């Protein structure tokens, strides 16, 4: 318990260092652009692939589990849309990104720690926590919601492609279904969740990497811990946010 509280305290002390005033805003801006590319743009591919197949499977499962004449078939489209917007495009995408981006952040910062690059920054008088972590947090907060929107679009596209090609729903019915009883607030809910998840993934993974002590083995362990802790926190906050935003 004491170890947990110590880690919790260290996490918030690190965040305090991260959100202190940047030394040279221009250098931070350049660094943020770099992170937008590496953490954000380079995650588009994996997000698109996952979303497409996720949408396809949701549509097929909904179709096969609602094979009943009293259910109108457009409900398959509606089910696909709401499942993707409410849960899959934010939570599942966040879990996948925790694996990809989280492990990358933890191993990058961890390697910098064990090869004394962070000491070199500190030696120069640079706030290493802020220089290394703040641009990553800003980049993910800006780009992950875009990934969510992309995931929603591609997921629905995947659902349409699978549904129509498998013959479980017509194109017209699917399109009618995804437009039927649409609640725009669900998009706000999904984006809000993703903002929180983006912060969790980046800050928890950076924390794990920043305090690595040892060598390559410890960097590997930090990377694993980053993914595990981020995923658990995402699932926990998913429940909390759902209760707060949808109740």
């Amino acid at each position, binding site marked *: 318990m004491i170890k947990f509280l110590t880690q919790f305290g260290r996490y918030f002390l690190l965040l305090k260092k991260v959100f202190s005033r940047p*030394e*040279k805003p221009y*250098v931070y801006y350049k660094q943020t652009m*770099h992170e937008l590319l590496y953490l954000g743009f380079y995650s588009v591919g994996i997000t698109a692939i996952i979303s497409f197949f996720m949408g396809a499977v949701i549509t097929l499962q909904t179709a096969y589990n609602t094979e009943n004449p009293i259910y109108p078939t457009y409900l398959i489209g509606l089910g696909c849309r709401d499942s993707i917007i409410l849960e899959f495009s934010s939570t599942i995408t966040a879990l996948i990104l925790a694996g990809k981006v989280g492990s990358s952040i933890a191993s990058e910062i961890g*390697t*910098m720690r064990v*090869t*004394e*690059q962070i*000491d*070199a920054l*500190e*030696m*120069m*008088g*640079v706030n290493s926590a802020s220089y290394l972590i703040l641009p990553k947090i800003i980049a993910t907060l800006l780009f992950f919601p875009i990934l969510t929107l992309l995931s929603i679009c591609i997921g629905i596209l995947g659902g349409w492609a699978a549904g129509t090609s498998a013959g479980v729903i017509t194109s017209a019915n699917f399109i009618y279904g995804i437009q039927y009883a649409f609640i725009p607030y669900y998009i706000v809910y999904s984006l809000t969740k993703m903002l929180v998840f983006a912060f969790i993934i980046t800050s928890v993974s950076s924390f794990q990497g920043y305090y690595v002590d040892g060598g390559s083995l410890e960097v590997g362990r930090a990377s694993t811990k980053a993914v595990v802790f981020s995923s658990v926190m995402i699932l926990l906050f998913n429940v909390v946010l759902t209760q707060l935003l949808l109740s």
Partner: protein
Amino acid sequence: MITVKHLEKSFNGHVVLNDISIIFETGKTNLIIGRSGSGKTVLLKSIVGLHEIDSGEIWFEDILFNKLDFKEKKKIRQEMGMLFQGSALFDSLTVEQNVRFPLDMFTDQTLEEKNERVNFCLQRVNITNANNLFPSELSGGMKKRVAIARAISLKPKYLFCDEPNSGLDPPNAILIDALIKEITEEYLITTIVNTHDMNSVIEIGTNIVFINEGKICWEGNKNEILHSDNEVLNDFIFANALAKQLKMHVRK
């Protein structure tokens, strides 16, 4: 000048540095020598503030460094350059960007002025046509020289070198030693070098401090070290067969 007074440092109750008092003089290469695990790196990192010390005083000229807050330390740190054991070049930056990094962070110079300074520093350490290479594309010796270029880019008053020769072949090690000595004398820097390489001791050891089990065991210069009667020091410097023969020759 850097003055260390009664410095003590321990990790989890294990005393690593015990009552260390030394004066490091300006314009001289001050060497800290000792076996692996004797506390050399901890001492160096304590002096530069990377480790919080338990007690004692660290003075940079007339400023008590270890009592300063983060912002005040930051000002002094801009007058320091450090060469780390593994070079500690930033992997994601090219050679040019690595050397320019301190200038980007702490000066308001134009890009042309910064590039001029970068090229000067790289030429000073004999690095040419490598501006756009990444650290992973450099040899060990080149990495060390780029790290020295980065360390001197802000014209430091203090230079700290942690095992500058580790992992280098003898000719490259001599080159790095010579470079450190030249830069120290040329720019009147207070240089502290941490080493267990006896070649460095003989080549550049103006002032030498021998640390054993966290305590200062011997102090002197490169001429005195070969004639010392200190048994622990002799066990350290004449550890190999070649050194033993040298000792016999010196004694004769």
